[in-house]
């Protein structure tokens, strides 16, 4: 739950094995955010000075604040794909559990794949959104280093994808809509992941998700990393937060392979078309969810409200359909993705 823009740990501590620190933390600044931070620091200094000397600086402060607001808009409306990637990976960006807890009531996390594992990189459970029972799930990045190690930096194992499909089957059986939240650099690439069938686990989800009768809404909230993202990404509607990214391969890996130089990742990020606008243009996603100016990490309360509103609107739209219509919608949505030409030429 959000209180004054800070995550309170009481609520989240009930249902998740970690909690956000309560003390104000130093902001983590991305390079392009620095001019903005400097300006904000300047505003603070003027304020402090005014308090000491009792000089009226209201006009000056107003001016500076307007400038800061303008600057924020300018910076965030002209981010390069590489900068978008940095925002999407921002350590303070709200995570899947932040969204789930903020948009739902009665949330109860459910664990395990019923076959020997509980992958903490994939979370899921049942809850209520606007009075409606739903199943929510997604990859979970850690909120700090310790948490990240437990959660494998949001890289799910085969057991994570199997836990996800188990919860989706549960939703389908009880007629609950499925809401998935995508935020992963990639599916985990380790020895055990290969041994336990990472490829099979993802493939199975891709096929099974076409089968469900209930509405499925998938939202990319941070990083949509390749097959690891798609493994919970087959929905009737695919939404993307403005500053999130979705990519066929991590730009760093792509650069290493195609340019033979991992340092060319900014070029690769540009060429791969990973931003929400680009993917809207390619007909891959259905909707872009606007983020607060300055991106979700600067105003998580507003960000979660936007996500909730978008999900509810889409849910109402999908409710107006029969289950067969939704399955056809889902099939045709993916069926129509692809650009090619026919005939000789």
């Amino acid at each position, binding site marked *: 739950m959000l209180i004054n823009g800070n995550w309170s740990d009481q609520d989240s501590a009930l249902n998740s094995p970690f909690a956000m620190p309560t003390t104000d933390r130093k902001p983590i600044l991305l390079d392009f955010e620095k001019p903005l931070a400097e300006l904000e620091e300047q505003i603070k200094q003027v304020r402090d000075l005014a308090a000491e000397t009792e000089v009226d600086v209201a006009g000056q402060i107003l001016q500076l604040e307007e400038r800061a607001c303008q600057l924020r808009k300018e910076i965030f409306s002209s981010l390069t794909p590489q900068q978008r990637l940095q925002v999407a990976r921002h350590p303070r960006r709200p995570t899947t559990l932040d969204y789930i807890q903020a948009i739902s009531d009665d949330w109860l996390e459910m664990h395990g794949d019923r076959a020997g594992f509980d992958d903490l990189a994939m979370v899921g459970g049942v809850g209520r959104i606007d009075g409606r029972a739903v199943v929510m799930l997604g990859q979970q990045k850690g909120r700090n280093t310790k948490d990240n190690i437990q959660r494998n930096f949001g890289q799910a194992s085969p057991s994570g994808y199997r836990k996800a499909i188990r919860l989706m089957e549960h939703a389908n059986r009880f007629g609950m809509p499925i809401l998935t939240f995508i935020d992963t650099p990639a599916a985990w690439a380790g020895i055990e992941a290969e041994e336990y069938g990472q*490829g*099979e686990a993802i493939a199975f989800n891709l096929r099974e998700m076409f089968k469900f009768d209930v509405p499925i809404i998938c939202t990319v909230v941070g990083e949509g990393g390749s097959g690891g993202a*798609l493994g919970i990404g087959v929905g009737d509607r695919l939404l993307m937060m403005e500053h999130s990214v979705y990519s066929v391969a991590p730009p760093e890996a792509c650069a290493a392979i195609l340019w033979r130089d991992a340092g060319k990742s900014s070029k690769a990020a540009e060429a791969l078309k*990973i931003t929400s606008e680009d993917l809207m243009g390619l007909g891959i996603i259905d909707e872009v969810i606007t983020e607060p100016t300055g991106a979700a990490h600067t105003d998580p309360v507003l960000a979660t409200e936007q996500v909730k509103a978008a999900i509810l609107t889409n849910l109402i739209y999908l409710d107006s359909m029969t289950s067969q219509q939704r399955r056809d919608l889902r099939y045709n949505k993916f*069926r129509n993705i*692809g650009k090619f030409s026919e005939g000789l030429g």
Partner: protein
Amino acid sequence: MSLFDWFANRRKESPEPSPPADREREIADGLWTKCDSCGALTYTKDLRANQMVCLECDHHMRVYSDERIRQLIDADTWQPMDETLHSIDPLGFRDRKPYSDRLREMQDKTKLVDAVQTGLGKLRGNPVALGVMDFRFMGGSMGSVVGEKLTRMIEKATIDRIPVIIVCASGGARMQEGMLSLMQMAKISGALERHREQRLLYIPVLTHPTAGGVTASFAMLGDIIIAEPKATIAFAGRRVVEQTLREKLPDDFQTSEYLLAHGLVDTIISRTQLKKTLAQLITLHPAPQPTPS
């Protein structure tokens, strides 16, 4: 006639040197072929009769799509589908060279339009839909064309109520088409779900190498999954795993035999027995009466 003209004429009369695309063929047409595994020299005609499987060490040499179709489909029954479907470089992608140039080069070199051939044919008299990926074409990578051709073929098989067989050989999704490539994984899986809903048989044959987005979609969705001996079958490539973990991996990591031991494929079948086995499996799984949808 000057001496120069004489040389020029002579050059014209001499047979055209074969283009580089036919190099594999040229080796195969050579009288003897050396096995890349044990080094044994085999009379090429015998090797081809044995489907390019070394007679000495059973090593399965690479075989490309035309040869595969010949090996699996009864003579004169192959009807190719969507032969002119081609990529249009949707992102205007350019790495060290433009994608459109890369495509043209590959097309010239391999005489293929893209990395998969699809069609209908008979396998020991049984009608089947067959897709064969070709590793020569940009590492068999899957972009819009591969996705669309396989999807159309599976949809046709669902209507015709016949089994689908896909011979996989691919490095995964084609990066030059970005997210369009990734989404082909879902598209093909969706088509397979509809085929499966009709209780029709799908058998992927995993050959060297099968990796990435292909492994994480149709390669692993078979009712029965067959692998060729000693093929590399992976989700993440060996080097990626090594880099992630910074440790040395076992030699047999990600081989067919390793996957069999970990319960991920049903069986390993020698190429020389593949057609016979597929025919056997198809006759064991006749198509049931259509289920009303």
